């Protein structure tokens, strides 16, 4: 099953490599990874998507918690949560395709953020599934480049991941 694990860690050199290293060392999967500093400059928030059965996910969370740099951790998929991923997608846009792409972007609430005589760059935010759907929806149009941020997420309601 797919899990979104989000954690706070010390904003120290080497911390990220310990997290990533753990996954290759113990044979776990990472589907996406996203990391940036928080409002407190001493901490980074890292969110990763992984797949595994219950036993594997339990080991992943325990092993991550064991890392000295990891302060706190939550498996967002265990409760109600909001999941977002950002995508920038550059596509060939010629003739009738231009109107088609504009319509499609509107339907998906995506924005066209760069336009040239032959290309559009579309920016879109949503669940990973929604981003996948957009790529499918534009069908025959030639995709020149896709950049995805990886998933970030937050729990709904009062629940927070904080020190």
């Amino acid at each position, binding site marked *: 099953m797919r899990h979104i694990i989000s954690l706070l*860690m010390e904003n120290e*050199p080497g911390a990220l*490599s310990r997290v990533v290293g753990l996954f290759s060392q113990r044979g776990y999967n990472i589907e996406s990874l996203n990391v940036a500093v928080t409002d407190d400059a001493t901490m980074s928030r890292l969110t990763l998507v992984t797949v595994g059965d219950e*036993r594997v996910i339990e*080991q992943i969370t325990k092993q991550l918690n*064991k890392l000295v740099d*990891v*302060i706190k951790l939550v498996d967002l998929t265990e409760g109600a949560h909001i999941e977002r991923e950002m995508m920038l997608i550059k596509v060939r846009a010629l003739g009738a395709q231009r109107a088609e792409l504009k319509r499609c972007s509107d339907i998906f609430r995506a924005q066209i953020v760069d336009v040239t005589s032959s290309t559009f760059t579309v920016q879109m935010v949503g669940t990973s599934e929604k981003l996948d759907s957009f790529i499918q929806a534009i069908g025959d149009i030639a995709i020149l480049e896709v950049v995805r941020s990886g998933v970030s997420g937050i729990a709904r309601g009062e629940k927070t991941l904080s020190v």
Partner: protein
Amino acid sequence: MELLSGGEMVVRALQDEGVEFIFGYPGGAVLHIYDAIFNHSDIPHILVRHEQAATHAADGYARATGKPGVVLVTSGPGATNAITGIATAYMDSIPMVVLSGQVQSHLIGEDAFQETDMLGISRPIVKHSFQVKHASEIPGIIKKAFYIASTGRPGPVVIDIPKDLTNPHDKYEYVYPEEMRLRSYQPVTKGHTGQIRKAVNLLMKARRPVIYSGGGVVQGGGSELLVELAQMLNFPVTNTLMGLGAYPGEDRQFLGMLGMHGFYEANNAMHHSDLILAIGVRFDDRVTNTVSKFCPDATIIHVDVDPASISKTVAAHVPIVGPVDAVLAEMVSQVKEAMASGEKTDEEALKVWWDRIDEWRAQHGLWHTPRYKDDSGLIKPQEVIEELWRLTKGEAFITSDVGQHQMYAAQYYRYNKPRRWINSGGLGTMGFGLPAAMGIKLKFPEDDVICVTGEGSIQMNIQELSTCTQYDIPVKILNLHNGYLGMVKQWQDMQYGGRYSQSTYEKSLPDFVKLVEAYGHVGIRITKPEELRPKLEEALAIKDRLVFIDCMIDPHEHVYPMHIAPNGSMRDMWLSKTERT
């Protein structure tokens, strides 16, 4: 306010930490630190002959004392040579602090002379690591390193120090922190009372219980409490390879070691058990045999300080996260309370259980029916270890390398105290025994410290005979000499049709007696069974010299019992070359 250079801070911080020995080897990147040692240190420094030996010596010291061992090596090859020893300590959860030199800060990443990414190379085999960015951080980082290495589930910590940060001309204020608290690292200090209560309820009702205890009980100082609990309940106890000595080896309730080369009675008791109290163990693959067939009727209580060890390979019914000493203490007091209020264990069922165990012992018990005797006229390795045990009254520190000799030393020496059996259980590092013995002998000069080894293992760190000469370290080395890589040969006998691919030395082995004499030590050779006792006595009587006992044994002996794999359960074992369960 006191101003010190980075190099001086390293030395002072180690002194403030109460370090008793530094095991190390100098080189370019640590010369400032070595100069500070020359000028300011009152900590004995042991100059080894290879950095791997420095880590094993520090490891031996740590296993025998429970305090972190300290290693100092230079950058590049100095650091990489230390890796095997760090991995050895990591696998067995041994506290260790390794200081490695690094090239100057501005050269890092430029492939400078003797540069290696020590943090990167060591990352999967350390509990944590640091690279110093400014000299003023040194005291704080050293304090953190010792704190992390020795608390929770212990392990090795690496501190990588660029050379420029130890420069004698740049001085900074030195303050050694008194306390250490880290927001991201807070090891548990006690077990969950409710979970312990659940466990105690199960213990009181058990009909076929076994206590399965491991290295965590030795490392966590839980040995006395384990004995108290087991004896109060009249439960049988088995120890893992790492846990030997946690329960007295000569006690009636002790079933011997379990696992791949475990005792018939221990493996059978586990398999037929209805309740396993697992303490400070990790259900290692060398214990469980096929996991899906592991102890089918048992409810499992698992106590460990590391939550990641619980339900990793075998699911626990009652998980208890906490230090073994604190959890055992609470278990003991809850059992006492229960007994005081009139609750009793199922004495009738326990009687039946003990009768069954005694039957197993009588059938194939290692100590109860001497299984190795034959009429070959050759010295049997098992007999050598039993004789050693008798002559040292089970009181010696025994270190070992890896292979058949290690298993004989685990099976036939009966360890009555924790921290006396010192071996590389997890990583299985050949070359561990001699340097580990050095680290122990330095700390316990009055005790017998004996390295049980083989020709393969001893030659992996034999250069340390020279270190023993320099520092006058009179350990004993008992070489069970069979002319083969014995355990490799055993597997080749059993699974590869006796094709000895690269497992024999032919006629290439040195005359070990002459070799040790060249280093200034004493060599004794034993070739006949009748010489065994007198020559071992002679060797043990020499207290002030290193003695190498080259004992020529039956080259074709195998270690039994041995789990039948693949697809075997705990109770499926070879009992001899021809007998199996």
